[in-house]
């Protein structure tokens, strides 16, 4: 309501005054009396309108609070003005940030850098800012995102050199001199801009034959009662079941980056996840399948995978546990 009252005042000033001046300029065409009346009428009209709107405003406030007080549209414009370098930065705790994006150009097969001046406040995430670029600056920007709450695994990318999920990365906490840089994960093949190719990643996940294996297929698909599992048994595999398949661990893994055949931390951690589940009946076959140089023995225990995992999965430990399990069984066979 206040916004529209302001608009009326603006109208009176911007339109009313020039019209008045014009009329004065041509006043010799009309009689003095007519002009005076016209001027009075215009001023009165403006005042009455202002009065009515004020009254409505007071009345509305008396009646209660409008739950939609936020003027989203106005805020959108306000932001744009701020980004374009209006003198004031708005409120305290708001900033204009220089967002640098390295984009993969599929035609030229290379990375190109674009930068954008973007509005941010203390709660803005990197994903918010990228969506802002798409909405108001450059809608050709390609990226993946969906749930914006760190559970779907779409928006893995590299922010200031660190592989993270864009949706749960706060801008202010990652600023370096009011600047932030975003680039695609380069441990995967690149498709376009920030979008990487997941085919190889999914293929490797699929190759370990994930999924709980049960001998009794009928009970599995026409179930009658839950399998027994104790809390301790649950805790054994639970942390490894948090994997959202975002691909950040593979991006960070030095072995994956040099040996394309290495199964990688994601797939291997999932071998451990199913193997450690007391309900699984596949037995050792599951881990014997990865008893190879490009399987568990490819891991050099750099630990980068566990460091970057946004969900607290610890692939590095999972792989060492697999190695231990294999060694144990090797000794047994001897």
């Amino acid at each position, binding site marked *: 309501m206040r916004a529209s009252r302001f608009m009326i005042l603006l109208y009176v000033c911007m339109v009313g005054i020039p019209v008045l001046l014009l009329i004065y300029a041509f006043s010799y065409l009309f009689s003095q009396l007519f002009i005076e009346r016209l001027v009075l009428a215009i001023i009165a009209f403006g005042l009455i309108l202002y009065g009515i709107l004020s009254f409505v405003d007071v009345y509305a406030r008396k009646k*209660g*609070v*409008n*739950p*939609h*007080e936020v003027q*989203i*549209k106005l*805020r959108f414009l306000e932001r744009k003005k701020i980004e374009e370098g209006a003198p004031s930065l708005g409120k305290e705790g708001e900033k204009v940030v220089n967002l640098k994006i390295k984009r993969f150009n599929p035609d030229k097969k290379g990375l190109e850098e674009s930068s954008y001046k973007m509005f941010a*406040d*203390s*709660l803005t*995430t990197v994903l918010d800012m990228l969506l802002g670029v*798409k*909405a*108001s600056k*450059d*809608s*050709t*920007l*390609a*990226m993946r995102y*969906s*749930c*914006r*709450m*760190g*559970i*779907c*695994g*779409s928006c893995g990318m590299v922010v200031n050199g660190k592989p993270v999920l864009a949706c*749960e990365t*706060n801008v202010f906490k990652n600023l370096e001199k009011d600047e932030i840089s975003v680039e695609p994960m380069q441990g995967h093949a690149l*498709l*376009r801009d920030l*979008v990487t190719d*997941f085919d190889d990643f*999914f293929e490797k996940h699929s190759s370990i034959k*994930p*999924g*709980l294996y049960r001998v009794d297929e009928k*009970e*599995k*698909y026409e*179930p*009658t009662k*839950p399998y*027994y*599992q*104790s*809390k301790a048994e*649950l805790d054994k*595999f639970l942390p490894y*079941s*948090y*994997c*959202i*398949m975002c691909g950040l661990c593979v991006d960070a893994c030095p072995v994956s980056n040099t040996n394309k055949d290495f199964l990688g931390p994601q797939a291997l951690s999932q071998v451990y996840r199913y193997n450690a*589940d007391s*309900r699984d009946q596949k037995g050792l076959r599951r881990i014997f399948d990865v008893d190879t140089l490009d399987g568990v023995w490819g891991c050099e225990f750099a630990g980068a995978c566990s460091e970057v995992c946004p969900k607290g999965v610890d692939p590095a430990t999972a792989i060492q546990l697999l190695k231990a399990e294999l060694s144990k069984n090797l000794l047994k066979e001897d």
Partner: protein
Amino acid sequence: MEILNHDIIILGSGLAGMTSAIHASRKSGNRLEIAIISKLHAMRSHSVAAEGGISGVLYPEYNKDSFDLHAYDTIKGSDYLADQDAVEILVENAPKEIIFYDHLGVPWNREEGGRVAQRPFGGMSIPRTAFAADKTGFFMMRSLYDEILSMNNIHIYHEHFTTSLLSKSGKFIGVVAIDLSTGNARLFRGKACIIATGGASRAYKFTTTSHASTGDGTALAYRSGFNLKDMEFVQFHPTALVPSGILITEAARGEGGYLYNSEGKRFMERYAKSKMELAPRDIISKAIITEIKEGRGLLHEESKLRYINLDMRHLDPKKIDERLPMIKDITIKMLGIDPAKDPIPVRPAAHFTMGGIDTDKKGRMSMGNGNESVGFWAVGEAGCVSVHGANRLGSNSLSQCSVWGRIVGEDVADYALKENSLSDGGVVREAEIEEARIAKMLDSNGKNNPYEIKEELTSTMDELVYVYRTTDGLRSALKKISELKNSFADIHLDDKGKIFNTNLRDVLELENILDIAHVITEAALNRTESRGAHSMVEFPKRDDKNWLKHTILSKGDTSDNITYLPVTITRWQPEERKY
């Protein structure tokens, strides 16, 4: 154009889509060729964001729960608009599905002694919601995805955006989808189609749902002349995080969290004395908005949104870590708030589409204007059977997706096994017409920015088609939406590239939510009563005499047709709904 042949084509890869794929495959002895077409990577569908759990009577001998009690809770929760025969199917089959997920590997929280743990949920008289921390949907999705990888006859098409349903004299013949990675249109021919594309809450700006929840299948069905049912019923989840709208699960209250207004009062006392914070969602959302309207809300400085506090400080921090770890993680990462130490700012946000594509009990779709159709099914949030009526109870959606995933999967398999061959007539020509339409859209060089249209549309829905609705408000929303549809006809699409063109995808999604917003508003304006999630200020009472019926809406030549379907009442007569 590349042509791919399958027996069954499933649009959407959430819980409903993946379960129907598995059961269709099993039913056919893994013989039918099944395509799952997802606009995302299949394991990333919005079902991953389901937090609190899945409902079902698991241990009746242990906690005195029963199918009748679960059915009664659901029907009362639905404000008596649910079809009671459908509800009976839901409650009788839900336990089996919870056990099915156990057999697929979902890490259910367990009690000492190994029993699957169950927590209290809104509107449920007994703790009957099984859960895996507060990531239940995520764990289900991962288990289903991993299961599907072992089935060689199920083919997953990641990142394909379906733009049209093709049929010949009412019979399904295929779909056209754009492969985002190449930008090429592909024709998927099939005998049967299952629409499992989820809800449409992205018609709103303040929503708990992922960016992908744009009701694509529902909009496709609407444009193809199929019946939609009860679209006016949009669930507003009472506790969405301010300002992002991220869902704070009902389990936060199920585990003992309280709601406080600015005066520090547990205001639910005024609205639902016996159930308090565990009243159904429609009642709590209305309570919160009433508190805010009467000046007892708090003001969020950054966003200027009004909110109330969700307080979990009195809970054992260990309980939060074990049962609500994701909520804690999210509030810390997004707002710097630890729920064990500070209250969380929340307000109602669009969350679930109770209405959807009208289906019968087997999930089969129907056409408007007396036209016949064969070979189309809808399931999950996209479909409307209807079990949720005017208001869904929390944790019934995961059971619904799973129960009807099985029913629909098996029914479709029976149908596809009987159908001999893919029909040929004219399908390629129709697909080429669609390809040309998309190419033309890609060529748009008009004057309007589609993202601004989306902003205006979703803000309009937030403001005028929210928890409380008025006739005038709905009328001006309808007018605004039709203006925006006109603006949409003259947009500019800046990205002319083929590879991963998300600008084109955004525009296709906008086209869909424009239709959905229109349908929601139109149906809301038509229903002159208040029932469940649909509250008209001028008509504050439920009106069983005139409105104990489903709204059926379909697209006509010039305007939409609205007809009605009676509600099936079996054993539970409508009574006053009090908590």
